[in-house]
């Protein structure tokens, strides 16, 4: 009789052990259980090899408050004489490093990041294609005081008029030159 009880208890322990083993990862609780899955997506487009720290901080603040995914997107221009599907590795040399830097910084603050690369004849065209492909709840861009860098005033106007998402444009702050740059901001060898 006692041996039967022992067998039953043993089998019960085994079942409980296997079930626990199945549901729990080796070290700790199931991931993501304490944090609801992000539903909103915040697009943070950039060009070149640096991004304004203010724009990044704003995206982080909003994403934290709304439990949203940050989508940093590097915009690349394909010259007119190349097919639009052409690879643009030279532009990506800086862009990929900057994407890595942004991703590292955002994830270090506990945010979910889902990076993208947009390609078009102009930065606006690249952004248009990106927005046509995916839904975003917010777009955060930083205006620059230099007409030759990034999105122009006309591009920003277009963004406000045509994009079916909330658009946040950060004015340039003359006294705030902080930025996240490609080479200087990556943690570790990349």
């Amino acid at each position, binding site marked *: 009789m006692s041996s039967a009880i022992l067998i039953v208890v043993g089998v019960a322990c085994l079942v409980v052990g296997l079930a626990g083993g199945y549901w729990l990862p080796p070290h700790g609780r199931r991931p993501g259980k304490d944090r609801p899955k992000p539903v909103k997506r915040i697009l943070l487009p950039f060009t070149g090899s640096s991004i304004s720290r203010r724009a990044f901080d704003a995206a982080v603040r909003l994403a934290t408050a709304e439990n949203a995914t940050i989508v940093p997107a590097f915009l690349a221009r394909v010259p007119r004489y190349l097919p639009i599907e*052409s690879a643009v590795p030279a532009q990506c040399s800086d862009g990929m*490093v900057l994407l890595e830097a942004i991703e590292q910084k955002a994830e270090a603050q506990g945010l979910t990041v*889902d990076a*993208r690369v947009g390609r078009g004849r102009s930065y606006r065209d690249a952004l248009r294609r990106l927005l046509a492909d995916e839904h975003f709840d917010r777009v955060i861009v930083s205006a620059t005081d230099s007409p030759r860098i990034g999105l122009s005033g006309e591009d920003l106007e277009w963004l406000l008029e045509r994009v079916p998402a909330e658009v946040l444009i950060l004015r340039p702050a003359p006294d705030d030159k902080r930025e996240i740059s490609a080479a200087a901001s990556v*943690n570790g060898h990349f």
Partner: protein
Amino acid sequence: MSARRGHLRVFLGMAAGVGKTFRMLLDGHSEQEAGRDVVIGLLETHRRVDTAKLAEGLPILPRRRVEYRGRMLEEMDLPGILLRAPELCLIDELAHTNVPGVGHRKRYEDVEDVLASGIDVLSTVNVQHLESLNDQVSELSGIRVRETIPDEVLGRADEIVLVDLTPEELLDRLRAGKVYPAERIDAALNNFFRIENLQALREVALRQVAEEVGHKRLVTSEPLGRSRDETIAADAPQAVGERLLALVEPYPGSQRLVRRAWRSAQRLGADLDLLWIKPPSGLSDDQERSLKGLQQLASVLGTRLLVEESDDVPAAVADVARRNGSTYILMGRSRPARGLARLRVPLPQRLMELLPGVDVRIVADRSARAKQDEQ
């Protein structure tokens, strides 16, 4: 027509002015001094005094005059060369496009005829004229070259000689008026001849020659009756060219893996393939979106995303790696296994067993380190 095909030596450079034609003429003189019958079939001096002076002493065949749209133009006289039948012919600018009505459309086709008649040829070309590099070079330099030659033309050359010069030296030559006449110098400096352009072109030219040399070593015919040691030694060069294979899945973290793999491939000068082993089940909306993002990233970077359907991941990866000749596999950290899956041998170990001689690298999650640093 001679039964022996002529020997083709091509002088390859990163840009105009590095000294390809000069080097071709020097070699022509050496051959002449060695007692060979050498002629110049076509020479473009671009009004460079030194080049014209160096051509003195080598017989120059007259050009053909061709009427095109009411204008008289000059082209290389292919029938004249074949009739003269020298031992060695110097033909400048391999990528040149002939005036319509001359015969062949391109000069490299004329050169093929010259070689086929048993005449050796020395010729010149710039790296941006190679068809496969044309897009890459135009993206780097912003300037599209219209006169191109198929890569096989260079592949068929018996010798490729890289005529190299540092970008700084080339710019000095340009400023000193040794490349273009004075009125063209400023325009050249502001457009094509920028230091970053020249650095990139030089890298492309050096890599191209290295690849051609590697390729020629691999296609060298194998003698019969080799011992096992000889076979191993002969197989060794195959390991010189790296080919990377990055294992991806449609989830956001894969983008990082692709970026790192691409950077590694760039440093090694290697090709990169991305591979997703698709399980037989369907995809969620999030996975569809991530897959699209990965496809876009692969396309922008100029890599291939391969998709194989299988529920045996190690076997499918090993199969693709063997097929593609991958020498290096990159993968992210596996998600923690649950239940009976914990008893399985982890994927990296399985791959090392299945693919001896292939390096397996697990790409670290840098954000974890950044998080640690911020704390």
